Structure formats: C-alpha cells, structure tokens
C-alpha cells in the first residue's frame, strides 16, 4: 500500500459528532473506552469508519482500538437488531439445558451467535452468568429476563417480540 498517499477517509454526517466526543475526552487518561461507548451510542454499533476516525483523532493505532472493541462484549462491530436476545451460557444454565435452547433460537431465527437477522429485528448473543441461576436456564430480551425455559418456549418468546413490534407500529 502506498501509505503516504493513501486516499482520504470517507466522511459521513456524524463525523463532527465523533469529533466532539473525542474533544471532550481528549485530555483524560484511558479515554478510549468512554469515547467508544459514546460513539457506539451514536451509531448503535461501531462501524469501521468510526473506528478509523477514533484511531486517527486520538492518535492510537487502529489495531489497539479494535483490540479493545473486540475484547469487551459490550461493544458491537455489527449493527444490532431491535430485539437483543441474550442467552446465558453460564455453568448453571448450561447444565440445565441452555444448549438446546440456543440451537432452537438459531434454527428459528436462521442466524448464528453475534449475528442479526436480515430484517434488522433480532440479534442473538450469548452471555456469562447473569446472577439468576435460580431461574436457570435464562435468557434476556432487551434486558427483560425469561427464566426456567425449555426449548419449546422459544417460538413463544419470538412471537411475543413480533407482537410488541406490531403494537408499536400501530
């Protein structure tokens, strides 16, 4: 690559907002994580252009930015669906059958872990122990907890979401 003459960065409408965020944090140590949080709030995830912008403006290698983003599960590299289904894979849940539930979710939504359905409705994630082992196996939809699940509950939960969506639309 011709690094001294590489083309310039694409600009999008939110560029100046990213700059503002960075400017606010610029002089504090360990600013990268708070900056990434705010940028994620702006876009709903961390698009590659935004990563590059943060790296350039904060003068940190983009590899380091990506290292941080990919280390914390809170950060998203891809756009998230309207409904974030997060299934607990902690020991208790796993032992009590989280595996088959996950399989069923994957089958129904036709996506894998970390992926979002094509219509932008559902994102499937796994997480660590939620501290609700008494209710194992557990999953959350946008933070709302569903417990003592079996794989037969999966279709119902997804339908619930779809119904909510329709209500909002109406």
């Amino acid at each position: 690559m011709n690094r001294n003459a590489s083309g310039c960065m694409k600009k999008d409408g939110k560029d100046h907002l990213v700059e503002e965020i960075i400017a606010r944090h610029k002089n504090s140590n360990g600013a990268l994580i708070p900056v990434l949080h705010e940028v994620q709030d702006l876009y709903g995830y961390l698009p590659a252009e935004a990563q590059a912008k943060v790296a350039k403006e904060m003068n940190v290698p983009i590899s380091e930015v990506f290292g941080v983003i990919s280390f914390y599960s809170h950060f998203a590299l891809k756009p998230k669906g309207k409904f974030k289904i997060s299934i607990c894979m902690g020991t208790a849940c796993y032992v009590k059958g989280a595996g088959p539930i996950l399989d069923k979710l994957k089958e129904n939504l036709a996506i894998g872990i970390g992926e979002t359905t094509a219509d932008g409705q559902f994102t499937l994630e796994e997480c660590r122990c939620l501290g609700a082992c008494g209710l194992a196996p557990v999953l959350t939809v946008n933070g709302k907890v569903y417990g003592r699940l079996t794989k037969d509950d999966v279709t119902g939960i997804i339908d619930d979401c779809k119904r909510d969506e329709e209500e909002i639309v109406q």
Partner: protein
Amino acid sequence: MITVTINNKVLKAKEEQTILQIATDNGIYIPTLCHMDGIHDTYSCRICVVEVEGARTLIPSCASKATDGMVINTASDSVLSARRNIINLLLSNGEHNCLACEKSGECSLQKIAYELGIETPAFIMESMDKATVDDSSVMIVRDNRRCILCRRCVTACNDIACNDVLSVGFRGSETTIICDNNIAMGESTCVQCGQCVQACPVGALTNRKSIGKARSWETTHVRTTCAYCGVGCQLDLHMKGDEIVKVTGVEDALPNKGRLCVKGRYGYDFIYSGERLTSPLIKENGIFRKASWDEALDLVASKFKAIIEKDGPDAVGGISCARSINEDSYQMQKLFRAAFKSANIDHCARVCHAPTVAGLITSFGTGGMTNSIGEMANTNMLFVIGSNMTEAHPVAATFVKNGKRNGAKLIVVDPRRHRLADYADEFAQIKVGSDVAFLNGLMNVLITEDLYDKEFVENCCDNWDALKEKVLEYPPKRVSEISGVSEEQIIKIARMLAENKPGMAMYTLGITEHTCGTNNVMSVANLQMVLGNIGKENAGVNPLRGQNNVQGACDMGALPNVYHGYQQVTDPAAKAKFEKAWGVEGLPDKNGLMIPDMISGLKTKEVKGLYIFGENIVGTEPDISHVIECLEAAEFIVCNDIFETETTQYADVVLPAAAWSEDEGTFTNCERRVSLVRKVKDAPGLAMPNWWIFKQIAKRFGQNWEANSGQEIWDNEIAPLAPFFEGITFKKIQGDGIQWPCNCIESPGTQILHLDGNFTRGKGHLMALDWTPPAEVPDTEYPFTLSTGRRLYHYHTRTQTGRAQGLNELLPEEYADISVEDAERLGIEHNEMIIVKSRRGTVTVKAQVSDRIPEGLVWMAMHYFENNCNWLTGRATDTITKTPEYKACAVAIEKIS
C-alpha cells in the same frame, strides 16, 4: 552483588537481575517463548517457570527478580510437569505439523516439546474454532493454526518497528492476533518489514519467498551489509549452497539492532536474475555483440588514450557508483587521476548530498553525520526536516519513533504530511523551498527571547554577530509569509527546541535538492549551534544519506575536488603525497567537472568520453530529454553495470560487473560506519569485480597496481593513505563496523564528531544566510509545484528492486500524488490517469488523491521509466555544488478528456 543458588550451584549475581538473566549468564538453560530480551515482556506463556524454595507457586523466571539467598531449581519434577502441561495445551490448541513447517529445526515449541519428551499432543480440542491461514500479504504468510499467542510479533511491530499494525483481538478461546481492525494483512497498513516474522518463535509467520527453499539445518549464515539505503543495516544471509534463501537482521548489531525494512529483508534476489550481464559487450552498427575481456578492455583503453591525446585529459569524465563498495570507488578515482590524469571524477552524491558535504565542511570542518543512528532513541528532541524517513530510511525511522515513545519531542517540518508527521508533537507544513527562512525564523525567536546557548556561540563558534544581524531580519511575521507556517507555530517550535535538550536534527534531500541546498544545510547547522546541540551525545546535525554507500563514495574521493579522506586536490602536499604513493607524476591539481557539466559537456564537445559506473543517469538526472540528447552526442561511452539499463543503451562498451554479495569489500553508512560486505557467490558468467576492471584499464596505461582484492585495496592503500581511515582494517570490522575518524589501530572510532565544541575546523562557523526562492516557481501556465523523491517499495530506477520478487507487486507503477482540494477543483478521481507536464516534458500517470499533500503541490517518484518524474524536472542547480533542484519545478496537471 547478591548470591543465589541455582540447581545446587552457588552463583554471584547483580542486583535487579531476573532469574532468567542470571541463569543465562551462567549457562543454565531455561526455555522461553514469549520473552524478548531487553524489550518488554508480556509474561504470557509461563514456560519459563522455576521452583523457588519457600515460594507457594512456581514463578516465571523472565518476570521475577532474584533476591539474595534465593534457592532456585530450574528442572524439578513440578517444573517439568508444569512445562509439559503448557506445551501439551499449546500443541492441542493449534495444528502443528512440523513436516510441512518452515520453522522446523528453529522452532521454540518444537524444541521444548522435544526436550520434554512430548511426541504427540495429549489431547485434541475438537470444540475450538479452527484458526485460519492469512495468505493475503505479498511477503508474509500468517498461519494462525500455528500461533501460540506469545505476542512477540505484536511487540516487534509496535515497540521495535513502531508500525502499529498488530494487536491482540477478541478474548478467551477466541483470542487471535489481528492486523488493524481485523482485516487481512495484505489489505492492512502493514509495510511488510518482516520484523514480526523475525520475532515469531514458531512457524506462524513465515517469509513467503523462503518457503520450500531450505531446511534450517541445511543453511549457513553470513553477516553482511544491506545493499539499499544509507542506514547500513547488518543482515544475516541464510545460505543454502550459493543461494540466499532468507535474510534476517543481525540481533544486537550496530547500527540496526536486528531491524530491517522490506527492501533489506526481501530485496536480495535481484542478483540471481536471468537478466544479469554476463559478458562484455561492444556496440557495432548500433547493436551490441559479445566480446572477450581483452578485446573490450583494449578498446576502452585505446579510445580513452586517443581522446586524451587529442583533446587533453579534461575531455574525459567519470561517474562513480554509490551502490558499490568503497574499494571500487577508490579504484575508479585512482584510474582517472593516476592513469588518465583527469580531474573529472564525480558520483551521484552530486544529485543528493553534495550540499551536505560542502555545507558541513564549511560549518564544522567535516562533511558527515555528526552523531549516530542509535542516539535517536535516547535524545530529548527529534527535529526532522525534509526527510520522509519512514519510506526512505525505514530503520532509522524506527529509532526516531522509539525516541518519541521514550519521551522525546518530535517536530516534523515538511511540505507533505508524511507518515512520521502522524507521530509528531508539532508538524509544520512549510512551503516547498522556504527552509532557510523558516530556520532563520526559529533562530530569530531563540535570540529575541534569549533562549539560545550563549556560552556555546561565544566560545565555540565564530561569525556570531553577522548571523545575529541576519537572523533579526527574519521575524516570525515575515517568515510566516514566506513559509506558510503560522507565527504562533514558529514561536512554539522555537521554544520547544530550547526547552528540550540535547536535541538531534535529522534531514534528507528535502534540504539538499534545492538551488539553495548548501545554504539549507548550513542553516540546519546554524540552528544546532545556536542551540548548543553540537559535540555532545544525542545531539548534532544528522543527514540521512540515500544510497548504501554514498557516504563511502564521497569518502573515497569520487568527487572532483578531493582525494579519499577529503584531502584537497589543490593542496600541493596532498598531490605530492599521492604522486609518491601511486608512483606517478603530474596528478591534476585543479578541481574537476561536476556531473551536470560532464553531461552537458558531451553536447558542447568539451567532453568526449564518459565512463559511467553503475549509474542509470538517464532515469535519475533531471530533464531526461536533455540527458539523452547529450549521451547521443557523445563520442565514446563506457558503462560498468550488472544489468542493461536505460543508460547502457547509449554506451559503446558495456562491462559486466560483480554485484552485491559477489565481491568482498566495505560500505560506509551515513553515520560514518565502515562495515564489511561479504561474498557469498561468484559473479555470473564473465562478470568481474569493478576494482578489477579499473585495474585492468590502468594496466593498459602502463600502471601496475598491486592490490588484488577488496581487502588488499583497503588495508594497503585506503587506510594508510588517509588519516580518517588509518586505524580501520578488515580484521577490525569482522563484527560491527567502525565509525571514522579512526586514526590509529587502537582507536575504536568516533561516535560523535566535534566533541565538547572542538570543531574539526577549530570553531563552528555560523553563516549569515538569506532565503532565496526556487529557480522555477508556479505561474499561470504551470501553476503547480512538483516535488520528487522515492517510495518505500522501490529503490531509484528499480534496476535492483524491480528484479526482486514481490516488490513490483507492492508498488506496480508510478503515481502523481495530488491534494484533495486540487482533485476536487479539477474533477480528478483517485486512481484516474492524468497528464502532468512541465517546460521539459509530459507524462501520463495515475493520480493519487491524498490528504497528505497540500494544495498546489504534485509529488512524484523516479521508479518507472515511462512516467518518471525526471521527464519533468528542471536543470537549475545549487549554486555551490550543482545539485539539481529536484524538489521544486513548475508543472501543470490536466484531466485526460
């Protein structure tokens, strides 16, 4: 001192040493994987654990300091079992097929597994996602199946080479090494320096060029000096028979400490090219035919004799080679002076650093870098002006970046916001050719704010009053108008320079390739003297020289005014000395012609015969059409070369020469370090060493030169005949090279010149200098400034790099870099073909739209012939050294409709 016991042996050790260091010092083996000595440790692998009496757990020896009385066991049962567990885990986590692995025999994992008696992994982790092979990079293959996540590559890339490409991504079992934001290496910002490959202890990173070439145990290692730039990196050639199968940097060696760039590591295979010249060639009726050495040499000698007899010795000229060894340049200038009695000998420093030699001799008394490359990592201030270091001197740039990370301030001054500017505390984007004004402006602030080193300018320098008076004519306001740098920034930079001392100034051709090149050099010298930054460690004026041996070619007297060791040809004592030593009479006692005059002289018939050694002047001199016209007008041209070039076409005789690695001799890098270049193979066909060729011609002029190898030439002639080199012998430079001046055999050489302000010329000379604009400035017809140079992946006209596998892929064509503003205004897209034209010529070239280029500037290189920037450049030269103004001429750009 402390006492520790390791494996029942009682040992004395220094405080603060780690257990690993003590063990290693005493020949006790502890395996390591992630540890990188002297850099930083990630302490991630734990293979180096040892048992310490009284400690609850095993402790990693690389991370733990020993304490007095410690009792350590490096191979107890629990240690061995812990190690077995680690190796089993590592083997199970990946796919390690030693049969197919390039690293077999040198691999740390394989070695440790073998020592622990592990035959196959104890278990297989089926559940894991399979790691992948990243095959996207031209030079490097990343096989993540073999990666043990030791992170040495990350350290090498970020902390040694400072290229900031690699990092650790994801977490837990998904942890992996990533390039940029997890993109393929070939698409990333990786510059293919291969430092990560050198650091990888296993076969996860390999050099593509080496795959399948040799097993590690079949190779022998030969230390040598890089054939490319003036940094002079030390290479370890991995040889199988007479083939170089791999190159690594010599760890701990000076100057590069194990580091290499893409050209040094991967640019070696041009010597095996099938296009090498293998026989002398004589042109008959416009066509070359093969000839014997005797026939070709007889012809050369008789033609030169005839010209000299008829038109005198001033009618012949010679251009020596800055790529070849010192011994070759010495022989060529000896041929011209002693045999032809001609003063006309020069070489391509004329087109690059002649102003450095002239300027620094005037200012300081010695025309070389005052300090050393390694100091860049330790100084407090790095002032880089007119130097695109990350591309032109990549390994020197790593030390600058190290210095910045070690706390130094970095100031970059350049018309282009090149890569190094990204790391800078202050980047001043000056207008092309405004350097003297800018530097005067800095000194103006230092003087008016009373921030200069009074003691130094008073005690160690002369001409202070004149300088002061001149500089006071350049207040920030005026300088800002000339240079385009804001008044505030000029003041800020001046204060920063004063606050952070000692400081080093680095420059390259952005300073020298101007009509005011020598003045620019002396201005940098002025600034450093005013700051008191001369004659001490981590300071000085440090020109980075372009070619591997351009320092050496100057040192060897391939210049029209000096014998080797800078002994003036006009000095009767020097003349007498060389007449005696060479056994001749009537050595020329005047200064000879410089290259531009030799070339133009062909057309005016003042010069009739030209001997061109290793230079492709058709591609590298300004105004190619003019050069061709002159060469066509010549009566007789001889070339020594290793390939046919655009220039050899115009020769009457072409003599095939031995290349780098086919002859033994020395290169001198920009920090004046004379290092050995070793022979690893014979030259192809009839090709012969250049020094031999010159010697044969001298013989035909009745002179019998005794020395018959690089070593004999250096040890018996070069060293004894010049005080600068007197103490340097081949025997003394078998390992690290020695920096001249080195005037006796006991001397270790000179790291720092002008120590304590004792200048070679007595006092440092402050020159009062005025700013002058470039010769050709933009106007309505040609509204852009063209500035030229070279890029990372190629060297000059590609005679070498164009024949090294992979480098053409990395930079396949010439570009014209233009600004975003101009591109938008003219409706030019990135990668669109455009026309660039000047008063001399026109080229069609691909535009690169870049936010690193300021409005009004076009930047091009000289790597590809058809659209070489030199079709456009002008013949205006530095008033003192006649170095062409490659950095500024006026051009127009046009969209192709």
